């Protein structure tokens, strides 16, 4: 299942902003959450939101606006949100805090090159799985979506460091036994 055209277009523009942010700050934003999971499952499901972690809020806003995104109007709940006028059905949210509370190993991040001027950084699949299982642990019992996402990521990953995965799942408060599959 290929990424929908509009989704891929927003991703490419977001990748331009990632590079602009890198050029200004020397560090990278990281795409997390459902959007990173969508990439890790080759688009088995899509969400309309792209969650990003970046240390410098102001620099991220400049990078986004510089490549054509629009800051959400208003304050309060819409603060931290951006959308692209050509694909306004999607929203990019700068989420607060460090990447996985500083527990993820940064040398495991993955750089996905979209074009020469566009690239996205995503967490290691082990960190994404741990995040999904942690969210499953606190979700309603009727909502197993994050468990299914974790299992899908696990099944689709080219390789998984089981030692690191187990450690990260436990750190995030999830249950590694829920993957109950062998590789």
């Amino acid at each position, binding site marked *: 299942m290929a990424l929908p055209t509009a989704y891929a277009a927003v991703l490419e523009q977001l990748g331009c902003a990632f590079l602009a942010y890198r050029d200004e700050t020397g560090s990278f934003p990281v795409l997390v959450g459902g959007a990173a999971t969508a990439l890790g499952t080759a688009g088995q499901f899509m969400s309309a939101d792209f969650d990003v972690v970046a240390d410098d809020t102001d620099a991220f806003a400049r990078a986004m606006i510089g490549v054509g995104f629009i800051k959400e109007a208003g304050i309060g709940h819409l603060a931290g949100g951006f959308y692209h006028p050509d*694909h306004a*059905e999607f929203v990019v949210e700068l989420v607060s805090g460090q990447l996985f509370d500083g527990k993820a190993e940064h040398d495991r991040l993955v750089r996905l090159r979209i074009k020469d001027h566009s690239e996205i950084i995503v967490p290691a699949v082990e960190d994404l799985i741990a995040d999904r299982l942690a969210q499953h642990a606190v979700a309603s019992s009727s*909502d197993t979506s994050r468990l299914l996402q974790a299992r899908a990521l696990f099944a689709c990953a080219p390789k998984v460091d089981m030692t690191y995965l187990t450690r990260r799942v436990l750190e995030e408060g999830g249950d590694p036994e829920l993957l109950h599959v062998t590789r």
Partner: protein
Amino acid sequence: MRTIDLSSYLADVEARAVASGVGRVDVDALRNKGGRRTAAKRAMLAAAGARAGGGGAAAIVSYY
């Protein structure tokens, strides 16, 4: 940090999705049902949905 071309990354992942059966999982079952979304996220998804409706774009299903 490893660097991979997105297109080859997606092709590899998709091949594994097909081989593992993930590609047959019901898409809606994978979607966050929104029970624990923050107020900010709910507001942003609502705004995005409203823009999609106004612009005639096909909105991606989101629960919030």
